[in-house]
């Protein structure tokens, strides 16, 4: 199994969630995050005063998926989260060693 971690624009979360649901991705975690990639934020002006907006608001979506589904899930995220502009985000894929259900203690197959 793999942990797929995607950093996307906040307004793209619902679309990505719906796309993943179509692939029967059961559970996922969505977190409000701030960060920057290559764009490194920018400066903004309010009433004549400049201030740096170095960390931009993004959403992090995490889902654990079977190995054979990883490519499809990545494609689904990429196609729904992409606008073509700078700041579309990133997708990371991380191997999962073990997964347990806290309530039952059940060990999932990985």
């Amino acid at each position, binding site marked *: 199994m793999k942990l797929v971690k995607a950093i996307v*624009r*906040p*307004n793209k979360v619902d679309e990505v969630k719906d796309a993943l649901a179509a692939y029967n991705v059961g559970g996922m975690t969505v977190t409000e*995050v701030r960060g920057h990639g290559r764009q490194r934020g920018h400066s*903004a002006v309010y009433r*004549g*005063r400049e201030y740096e907006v170095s960390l931009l*608001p993004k959403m992090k979506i995490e889902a654990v998926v079977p190995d054979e589904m990883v490519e499809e899930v990545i494609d689904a995220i990429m196609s729904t989260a992409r606008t073509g502009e700078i700041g579309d985000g990133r997708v990371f894929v991380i191997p999962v060693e073990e997964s347990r259900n806290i309530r039952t203690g059940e060990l999932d197959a990985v």
Partner: protein
Amino acid sequence: MTTEQPAADVSVGEPSLAEILSAARDEYRAEIRLVRGGAQAAKDYSTRIDGLLQRIHAEAASQTETPVALVAIGGYGRRHLCLHSDIDLLILFDGPIAAAEERFVKALLHPLWDLGFEVGHQVRQLSELEQAETDNPEFLVAVVDSRFLAGDARVCARFDTLIHGPESVWRQPTVEALVGLFAERHHHFNATIYQLEPDVKEAPGALRDVVAIRALVALTQPGTARSVPTTSGRLDEALDEAEEFFLRIRSLLHLQHRRNLNTLSHDDQEAVAERFGSPGGEARGQVEALMSVYFHHTRIIARILAAAITEANPPIGPGTTKPVGDNIRASRDGIGFVDTVRASLQPRTWLHAFQAAIDEGCPVSPEALAFIERHSDRYTSEEFFPGTSERDLFLHLLTPKPGLYERLSEMHESGLLGRMFPEFRKIYCRVIRDFYHKYTADEHTLLTIRNLSELADPNATRRRRFARVLAELRHPELIVLALLFHDVGKWTNRNHAEESVRMAEGPLRRLQVPPESIRTVEFLIRHHLQMSVAAFRRDSEDPEVARQLARLVGTEDRLKMLCLLTLADIQAVGPDTLTPWKEDLLWRLYVDTYNRITLGYGDEVIASGQSSIAQLRAHRPPEISERQVSDFLEGLPQRYLRLVGPGTVYAHIRLSRDLEPDEVRLTLDKHDDVCGLSVVTKDRPRIFSNVCGVLSYFGMDILRGQAMSNRQNVVIDLFRFVDADRFLELNESGPSELTRLLQDVVTGNVELTAMLKGRDAAARAQRGKIRVDSLVHFDHHYSDRYTVVEIGGANQWGLLYRISRVISQHGCDIDLVLISTEGDRAIDVFHLTRNGAKLSRDMEQDLRADLEQAVGAADEAR
């Protein structure tokens, strides 16, 4: 062994502990299924558990020679054990605790753990309890309900004397612990009883508050008749009824979930309502009936608890009263009426009591609220607002400030708010079923007002950037008015924003709110979801999002109001809904939109084909031609049509017709204490500067100023100012003097600089005393056509004149101007060109230096 053991013989053939427990639980479950899992069932079950513990104790007793008592505390002490409740026990030794005593404790606890009980056990030596455990508030409160179970009764009797005796040192710390825990627990629930999915044990007004009331009364009035005031029947009956209701629900939850879960979720509400046989054909109706009973009890309990806490901690100071208004006095209990007969006949005066309570920083007294509750039903909504003075009082009361939420809540609880505005009563305890909302629609509404009022608290440290925006608004009460009605449309499942606008029409008409304010309130209600949609559902980095929002709001004031309303609305959905992340997104959208409105509006001009021109042409007065409408509007910024209504447009068209080159035409009007001036003339150098100078000469404090021009080279300057010295009011010829001087200055017949010289010297002296950061910022990004200069500084006499004069001296054309004054601070935005083009960097450098000198920024930089 010195225990006086209650009967609990263990003999062969007796059922096992597990069998006893199983049988006890089966009996309890049977009662719960019949919806009889209330106090009696809990008591019966507790008694069965007592037997179980006595038997375990008997088996463990041989482990120690030290006198020991087993004491039930907390909910178990009260005999309120629910099906899956924890068991709270105190094991009390009259002697040192050594290895034998530890074996005894193990022998006692292990069987309980084996049976699957969650045991909250406390082990103490009796001598330790001679001092109150002030660092353990939960324990202090738990031992209030202590009950001997097994062991040495004399140990328990001495314990009882220490804790509950007349000389007990535990009493006052326990009262303080109760009040402290109560405050902490209520804070966790955002201090409101109106929880959509309430925890029937912990939520404000629920089971634990009933217990707290009983404990407070027992601790503060030992051995006397209890006298906590309640407007809903006798104390014991009110408490018993509520307690029985909560216990029965709780038992159903334990039965359903097979664990110690006390949250009445939406799904549980349907199941419980069905079990109770609540009236209503459908699940939704049944749930509403169930929850209305729930809120009925919680309201009563909350009120009794507040009274009990006041009784336990009476306000310090003499019990004197003082008059704080006509027929209104302040006393230790809060604000009340002096002559209740008179008050009962004058409902329009009741608002004064609430205003006085806000001014005095105290509540309206329980007696006054009970009085209002008894009398309000006799009056119609119109009778509360017979004239504009009551309207003004109500709008003044709605100004966001600390205490407003509490007073509105009192109005709501006493039924006054619903009586004044039957539209609001439509959402009384209205349950909104979704994933996010935590409170009923009426409480959500009041919480939005609390959130906004928190921004007005000068001692608050959170969200200061939004607080500054609120402080800049001239009519912040309009946001509160909009918030009050923004969700009244939720009584139906239709588009609630539009329904809310429709329903707000009646209250706004009865209050005789001025038309311009009505438009603002209706705008805020209609679009109260738009900014959160734009901030959280759209791409915040897409400039089009801010552009669309800028078009929607039109002006800075509306943007500020919508932003603050959105912030307050999101925060009132649930305690964790407004995260710093969301707050940031909202602020970014606000800033982008603000910049779009103030810096980027110059490029969006009215074009010939647009629908607003067609509408104005279609509805024009007979003496104005279609051509005149088009000629006047074309080339003006779109902003113009967002600022003025059709009547003002036609008035400006009339002023602009057949205008001679040297002619200045103007209209002057006054709304409340603010004067409005429209100046229409042919474009020429220094017009804006000269108008500012003339207004300054007459001592006017300019709040807003805007300058724009159309394709016909007609200039329209719009000003709003305060005539602080009442020059226009006290001098009959004032308006004509102002017009004459304006005409003379514009045509060059009078040299204004010389006239202002003396005053300018005084202003320079004053400038040093006002400490406001000054700035001059040039922007070449927002507009394709103009160099935009933002200038901020201390709001002083003649500042605008000085700035605009400097700009003109540099040969720049002031094409558009936007001026706002916010208290001590002035924010001016000038759209400039020179010879029809943006300013070069060199020009900018020269102009910046002189502007900084004019506003004092250069001085501060040094």
